[in-house]
């Protein structure tokens, strides 16, 4: 019997070293939240409220970090045929995909806490519900990573992965309530917000940082779990259909 734990750690370690801990990605993890904060600062006519924008910057850092990295790395490995090596190994497809996504989940979590670290030098962070914040970050990272996985297994080329990612990311950015409260959106668009996982993640983050929420915490978590399960199922189904033809 194959020791699956060793295979899992092997893949995770290889991905961390080959992709996530590369200097350009580390610097990207820092530059990205700084750019977002700066963007909010420039568009604001008065002093920017760091605490108010913190959930948004955290959510976008996770979303962009995970989807970009995973969709590109998997498409790249698929192009170079090294992904074939993994598919031909004696570990189950589910475990293989969990190993491939764990690195991106960790990368997303680290990306989320970089803005928190910056904010801690500028504002008082007391009153934050750290437990809920951690859960929110974890579940947003998992859902976004699985979204990246779904994108990766639906395309053939690296550039397609980027284009397809934006197809999901940009509507999510504007419709999930981060920039414009969902209540202020036109009634016809509002239902769309509720089929986007980031809506529930950002609601959780807003609750944990600013104690404002429109959906109960448990419901937000449950919806994120359901989104994660669905995206993972669709991704592995797609792999079986397209790559193990």
């Amino acid at each position, binding site marked *: *019997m*194959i*020791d*699956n734990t*060793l*295979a899992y*750690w*092997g*893949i995770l370690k*290889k991905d961390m*070293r*080959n992709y996530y801990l590369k200097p350009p990605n580390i610097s990207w993890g820092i530059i990205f939240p700084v750019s977002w904060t700066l963007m909010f600062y420039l568009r604001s006519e008065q002093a920017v409220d760091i605490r108010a924008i913190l959930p948004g910057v955290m959510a976008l850092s996770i979303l962009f970090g995970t989807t970009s990295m995973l969709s590109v790395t998997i498409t790249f490995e698929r192009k*170079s*045929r*090294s992904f*074939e*090596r*993994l*598919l*031909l*190994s*004696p*570990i*189950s497809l589910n475990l293989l995909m969990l190993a491939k996504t764990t690195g991106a989940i960790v990368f997303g979590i680290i990306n989320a806490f970089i803005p928190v670290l910056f904010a801690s030098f500028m504002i008082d962070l007391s009153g934050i519900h750290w437990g809920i914040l951690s859960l929110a970050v974890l579940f947003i990272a998992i859902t976004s990573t699985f979204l990246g996985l779904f994108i990766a297994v639906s395309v053939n080329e690296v550039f397609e992965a980027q284009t397809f990612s934006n197809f999901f990311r940009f509507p999510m950015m504007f419709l999930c309530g981060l920039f414009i409260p969902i209540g202020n959106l036109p009634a016809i668009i509002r239902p769309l917000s509720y089929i986007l996982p980031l809506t529930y993640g950002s609601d959780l983050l807003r609750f944990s940082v600013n104690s404002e929420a429109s959906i109960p915490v448990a419901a937000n978590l449950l919806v994120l779990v359901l989104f994660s399960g669905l995206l993972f199922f669709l991704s592995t189904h797609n792999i079986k259909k397209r*790559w*193990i*033809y």
Partner: protein
Amino acid sequence: MHIIEARNLVKNFGDFQAVKGIDFFVEQGEIFGFLGPNGAGKTTTINMLTGLARPSEGTITIAGLDGVRNIKKVQGIIGIVPDESNLYDDMGGFENLVFCASLYGMKKRKREQRAHELLAQFSLDDTGNRPFKAYSKGMKRKLTIAAGIIHEPRILFLDEPTTGIDVESARQIRQLIATLNEQGTTIFLTTHYIEDAERLCDRIGFIVGGSVVKVSTVQALLTEAQQEHVLQFWLEASGTHLQSELLDAFPMVSMSPESDHTISLRSKVPMDLMPFMHFFDARNIKVREARLVRPSLEEVFVKITGIELARLKKEKEGRK
């Protein structure tokens, strides 16, 4: 004992049938060559045997296991070396091998020890820390083979192991394949280098248009080919227009023009050179060179597949 057995194996891609109900087996401990022109269904068959494709119909049994239902168990006892080196460019040779070993659940000490052993066996021990992308083609090929056998598989699938590499590396790889086989590994080899197949394989299966058209031992194939006598002539002028005259004069031969100035004459009975020399002389056609050809496996391949090997080699090497 049959270590691989394929029965009525079919693979459909929509309306197109890539593999048309093939049957064959591989004996434990043998080197089985699987030959055929491009698009014949070789890769699809290998993909079905190794778990990268699901058969539309038929059964696969590998080492007594159902090769479709128990594919993950099967993958634990087989090694696969694809036609392109697919290791990780930024990782060193040693690191690549250790990673591949981890996929088979090998413990740290064991995988490091095995990686060192293989680097030494493949004469790559001096370059173990060099990134894979800095390796030469021959070195990449050797490391890819080493990665395929890191877990000491019972069966090794080798797809075009010597294509596109230098002569010395190809020689070393052939030697390694023979050594592995001597140590008990069953080898399933695809190659378009008929010399490799002739030198290495015990038996050969030919696949053409999705069907296995012949499976036989190399010796039997050669004996069969050598039943035919072939005379080859290089002429100073074009000889293609002489076909009907030649066949009238020598009814026991068949003629195949190979180029404008080269013709091959085949017969089931031994042929004497002189009557043909007189024939050309009488028509004022100078013969530059004439020789009796001993039919090789290459002739068998051409006869069975209808594909000229030179064209096949060109296509394959152009792809690399």
